[in-house]
C-alpha cells in the first residue's frame, strides 16, 4: 500500500512538474505557427521562392554521389 501511495505521489509530482513545460511548449509552437503563417501570407512570393530554392538545394545534395 505504501509503495503504491509513493508511486502515485511521484506520478503526481512528475505531472505537476512537466505539465507547465508542456503547456509552454504548446504555446510556443502555436505562436511559431501563427508567425510563419502570417509571414507566408504577407510575403507569398518570397516564401514560395525560398521553398523552391530549398527544394532545389535538397535535390542537389540528395542526388550527389557520395
Amino acid at each position, binding site marked *: 500500500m505504501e509503495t503504491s501511495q509513493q508511486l502515485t505521489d511521484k506520478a503526481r509530482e512528475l505531472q505537476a512538474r512537466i505539465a507547465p513545460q508542456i503547456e509552454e511548449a504548446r504555446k510556443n509552437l502555436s505562436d511559431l505557427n501563427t508567425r*510563419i*503563417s502570417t509571414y*507566408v*501570407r504577407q510575403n*507569398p*512570393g518570397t*516564401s*514560395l*521562392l525560398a*521553398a*523552391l*530554392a*530549398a*527544394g*532545389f*538545394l*535538397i*535535390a*542537389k545534395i*540528395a*542526388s550527389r554521389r557520395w
Partner: protein
Amino acid sequence: MPETTQSTQSNGTGNGADHRGLGERVDHINQSAQELWNEAQGAVTQLRETLDLQGRVDRHPYGMLLAAAGVGYVLGGGLFSRFTGSLVRLGFRVAALPFVKQELLNIAKGALQNAGGRRDAGQTAAAPVEPPKTV
C-alpha cells in the same frame, strides 16, 4: 547663285522630311513598345488571376510551401535519386502497415482458434468413454 540657293532649299526640305520620317518612326517604335508593355502587363495579371497564388497561399500556406519545395526538388533533379527511392519505399511501408497489421491479427486469431479447437478435441478424446450398458 540661283543654283546654290535652290540646292540649299532642296537640301533643307530633304532634311526636314528625313527628320519628320525619323520622328514618326521613333513615335511608332515608342507606341509599339508601350503596347507591348501593356500586353505583357495584362498577360501577367491574367496569369496571376488564373493561378490565384495569393488566394491559394492564404488558404493553405504550408501546402503551398510544400508544393513549391516539391517543384524545386524536381527541378533540382532529385526525382530519380537514391534518396527519393528510399523515401518512396518508406512511404509504401508506412502505407502498407495497417494492412499488414490486419493480416497479422487475422493470422493470430486463426491460429488461436485452431489451438483452441485442438485442445477441445484432445479433451474430448481423453475423456473416459462410458461402456455400453448391457441389458
